């Protein structure tokens, strides 16, 4: 079995016994898999990612990363191989400069100063943000913060990258840059997102979730072109596949106002 492998078997999770958030989730991800997890708000996408990286441990079922079963004891080894990019980059950047933030993980894994420096430079180079090296995160734009957050996990040289809503709050140029970066990374990628156009461009497989369950698991093209399936689950076709939406700008046409 390849070390680059995630197996999720019959995973269920709830904070409260009466309200299950995830129900009997099973899937596996292998080398070269780029999986988009899609679904309406509150279906458990982020929770599933948090379970994969061991931030939620009170689940039933089994999660295996590589050959290692996720348990409290194995968490340090598991986390060394998984990079998790938070939805809000503010939570990921807490050191005074981007360099220090990227160096945080390699230092924690006991690398010497020279190796740390090499890892940081490599991560900055991969993302193309060498110019941000000495910048303080609070002085950066949302797009720069997101790129820096991705660099922080690349410095760990992970096998698997998990991302929670990576394109949220990005302008079109930074979104495009992120898509290009994601396509250039040779890792297992699992991306939870509502940005179906981005999923279409970056993922070769999609898991569609609804009410805590996986209701479709297949090729991206097959699922993201299935209008009925998407609409039945609170989604719609990616914008690029919608064709003429009938929306146009008509400034001279009278329209009704809502009076409060």
């Amino acid at each position, binding site marked *: 079995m390849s070390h680059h492998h995630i197996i999720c078997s019959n995973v269920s999770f709830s904070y409260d016994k009466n309200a299950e958030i995830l129900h009997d989730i099973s899937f596996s991800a292998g080398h070269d898999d780029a999986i988009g997890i899609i679904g309406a708000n509150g279906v458990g996408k982020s929770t599933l990612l948090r379970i994969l*990286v061991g*931030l939620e441990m009170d689940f039933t079922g089994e999660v295996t990363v590589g050959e290692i079963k996720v348990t409290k004891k194995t968490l*340090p080894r598991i*986390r*060394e191989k*998984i990079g*998790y990019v*938070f939805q*809000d980059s503010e*939570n*990921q950047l*807490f*050191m*005074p*400069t981007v360099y*220090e933030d990227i*160096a*945080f*993980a390699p*230092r*924690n*894994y006991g690398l010497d*100063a020279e190796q740390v420096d090499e890892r940081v430079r490599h991560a900055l180079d991969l993302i193309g943000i060498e110019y941000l090296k*000495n910048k*303080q995160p*609070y*002085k950066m734009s949302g797009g720069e913060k997101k790129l820096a957050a991705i660099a*922080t*996990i690349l410095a*760990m040289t992970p096998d698997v990258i998990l991302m929670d809503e990576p394109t949220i709050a990005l302008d079109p140029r930074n979104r495009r840059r992120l898509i290009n970066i994601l396509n250039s990374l040779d890792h297992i990628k699992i991306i939870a997102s509502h940005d179906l156009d981005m999923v279409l461009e970056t993922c070769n497989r999609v898991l569609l979730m609804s009410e805590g369950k996986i209701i479709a698991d297949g090729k991206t093209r097959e699922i993201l072109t299935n209008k009925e399936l998407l609409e039945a689950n609170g989604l719609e076709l990616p914008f690029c596949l919608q064709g003429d939406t009938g929306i146009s700008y008509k400034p001279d046409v009278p329209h009704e106002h809502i009076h409060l």
Partner: protein
Amino acid sequence: MGKISDAIYEVHYMDTIASKDSPVHRVHPLAKLIVTVAYIWFTVSFSKFNVTGLITMVVYPVALFSVSGVSFGHSIKKLRIILPLVILMGIFNPIFDREPRFMLYGLTVTDGMVSGLTLIIKGMLTVLGAYLLISTTRIESICYALNILHVPEILVTQILLTYRYITVLLSEANHIFEAYSLRAPFQKGIAHKVWGSLIGQLIFRSIDRATALYDSMVLRGYNGNFRHSQLPGARLKDFSYVFIWGAVFSVLRFTSLTTLIGSLFV
């Protein structure tokens, strides 16, 4: 809530000036820490009636301000906040100690007045010394120096994370108060009947943010011990910095420089 955003700006401002480059900024943090502690110790060790001797200790902040490029005006503005506390320390001395000490233009100056004044000067100088340390040294470097001195790891981590979490707490408070003030445009401040729920919100939000930050640290291998960046070892100039300031402080403390200078002209 301009005051909260001002406070956030202030924390970031301190980060910015501490990251600047100057001969003082380049001195090893341990050397600066030792010199600061020595400065504070020498300053507070002056006798309570030795005003003139104490005044000569301004040589250290004056030298650091001129070499480091830290804004003197901004520092004084910041010190204004703690000035009432410093004055409070010495304000009661004239009341309790009324022993006459000398006459000045027909006015009796009492022991209490002199000791109160020295207490205020000591307070100002020591705070200024500490302020100059954090203005010229990043908090991570100060913690690194504390680590070298074998200060318990848990204490050093506490200092570092408290500093980092201050902005988290402040920014959450700022969001809450901005949202409140936008929907209560004619109110000055916040109605006291909603204080309870706002503070509750603030606590929960801060806990959430702090948990997310902690999760992010744990996911990147943090296990309770903060690994500091390895700074280059102390060099000759760092030892010289400690030695020279140690010598200056000793001369100022143990010789009466003002009398010496005065005797040259008499």
